């Protein structure tokens, strides 16, 4: 086969792994530039029609955190000692949870919104995925800035371990994104997946120690303990705020698994792509 020759055939793409890998590499080469341009422009376009613009980014996390603080304050819910001021505890938990939750929904949402283009233009789909990941990362950075201000205002002293927090945040993003990407091929075909993701994310929130203290007095095989998001949220929050319960080894294990799942999900998506485009 000539170097500049492209072959489209009915054979499974993995029948020729080197050709499959070469195509993936070629697409990845153009993704950073395309994704960055798309993301910047989309960001500008999104905030152009808004008076408050970027100020909206931390609002959901703050609103959710303040709701739980209020519920705790009026004793509707009592979670006991969290080791640090409850506001700092719940706000950091919500910010970290939202990294995971937004990462979970990002791939399907990004590609679903672009479906009219996917059928006509040969832009690498990874550009939309990367652009969506950048969105989640920006949201995180803004919320993190607000969180640090709140932590300082609440009298929480910043610790050296805070420098490890980005690792946990990246792990949360990768885990959410990996699960979301793994579901995307089916999700682009069946709307049920998008609907189910919204429902599951709500349920998942309560299975993660975001608003209640951890470690709790629960059996080791409880859903909360088995929840892969638990060690990520708990450990990252501990690094950020000094809250108890850090499990760095578990975080590393889940993080490594998330990276494997992300790569596997990406490769499966590439295999599925022409079949998806034919049905969009």
């Amino acid at each position: 086969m000539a170097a500049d020759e492209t072959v489209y055939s009915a054979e499974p793409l993995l029948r020729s792994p080197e050709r499959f890998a070469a195509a993936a590499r070629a697409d990845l080469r153009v993704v950073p530039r395309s994704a960055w341009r798309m993301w910047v422009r989309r960001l500008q376009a999104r905030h152009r029609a808004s008076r408050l613009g970027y100020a909206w980014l931390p609002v959901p996390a703050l609103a959710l955190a303040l709701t739980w603080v209020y519920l705790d304050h009026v004793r509707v819910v009592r979670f006991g000692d969290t080791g640090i001021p409850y506001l700092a505890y719940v706000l950091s938990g919500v910010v970290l949870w939202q990294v995971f939750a937004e990462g979970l929904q990002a791939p399907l949402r990004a590609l679903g919104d672009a479906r009219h283009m996917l059928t006509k233009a040969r832009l690498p789909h990874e550009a939309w995925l990367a652009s969506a990941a950048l969105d989640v990362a920006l949201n995180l950075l803004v919320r993190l800035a607000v969180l640090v201000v709140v932590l300082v205002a609440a009298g929480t002293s910043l610790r050296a371990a805070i420098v490890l927090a980005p690792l946990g945040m990246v792990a949360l993003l990768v885990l959410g994104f990996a699960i979301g990407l793994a579901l995307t091929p089916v999700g682009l075909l069946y709307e049920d997946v998008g609907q189910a993701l919204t429902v599951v994310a709500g349920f998942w929130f309560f299975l993660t120690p975001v608003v209640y203290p951890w470690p709790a007095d629960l059996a080791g095989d409880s859903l909360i303990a088995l929840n892969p998001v638990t060690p990520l949220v708990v450990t990252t929050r501990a690094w950020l705020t000094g809250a108890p319960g850090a499990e760095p080894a578990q975080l590393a294990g889940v993080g490594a698994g998330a990276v494997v799942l992300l790569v596997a999900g990406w490769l499966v998506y590439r295999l599925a792509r022409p079949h998806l485009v034919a049905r969009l």
Partner: protein
Amino acid sequence: MTASGEPVVRVDHLTKRYAGDLRTSLRYALRDIGRELVPHRSPGAARPGEFAALDDVSFELRPGEALAVVGPNGAGKSTLLKVLYGLVKPDGGEARIRGRVGALIELGTGFDEVLTGRENIAVNAAILGLSEDELATATEDVLAFAELEDAADMPVRYYSSGMRARLAFAVAAHLRPDVLLVDEVLAVGDFAFQRKCFRHMQRFLDGGGALLLVSHNVFLVQTLCTRGMLLECGVCTFAGTAVDTVARYLAVRQPRPAAGGALAAADGTAPVTVEGISAARPGGGPPATGEPLTVTVRYRCAAPVEAAWGFTIWTGDHWVCVAGDHDLRPRRLEREGELRATIPRLPLLAGTYVLRAVVVDPETLLPFALYGHGDEAPAVVEITTPPGVHHNALTAMQQLVTIDVDWD
């Protein structure tokens, strides 16, 4: 440029199937994805509920060649382009393409709506692997060609359909493709831009590019393409010269007369307007069988223009074209005037007929003006036949024309 003589596109027994029912289609999609994960499994045969959008299509395209793909709606033309562009995967056979591919799958689509025109150019250039230096040059070329310099930094969502069309063609054609896949390029856009596209495609071919053109516009196909392929229900039913392919297409299609609308200038005005068509005997009197008949077209032009013209005579029910002719030699049309042609001996028998006219661009054969094909009523002509036993017999049989016969 690709080595001359070697095919840049080689399509071999290409097949693509779709399921008509959505639920079935989605179920098959899951199976197809599952099959990708098992590399040793061979592609399967047609499944229940599937139809072939492309069925065993083969052809080659060499540098400098233009292949027209014609056929009715649903024939598989756009599917062929999508397979060749790598958007969808074939279910059988293969396609090999050498070099860069530029494509217009649907004119004016395929852009990211929130990106500006300039940014969309950059993204497309990145996909084609252009360097930053090449991008800088190509961007200016694209914007200049599309006449969008002033709108370059405006998000594409604010572009009109004409602006999108111009940008789409300019992007596909200017990012130095070796193979250009074009679907209905001249379906929109003003006259000047269509002409510009036509000339650009000619230069692209002269420079060794290979063009695969999908179009319903039989004039464009015949003028631009050397070869043609007729697709019907996914099957290539004819392959030959573009002219022969169009002839075959028209024969199977039972065409209505219009082949696309008339061209309009950027401001929406037509370069030529036909104000009326009439037919009369040169010496006076009603049109009659066997007598000369002069057809006169009255026109008005926005500005003097080179044009060619023709007329057709149809049965009174507007359905059957009985006769007609075109003179494709260019002639200068002033701001207003008349075009005339004389039939020395009218062969039509008595009856009611309608006259239609077309004025075309002699270079592209795209119509400047159509008369009687659209909303305006064609001219009605009553033809009389001198009474006689012979003519009465022919008229009684509803014969339309007389022919000269040498009897032994």
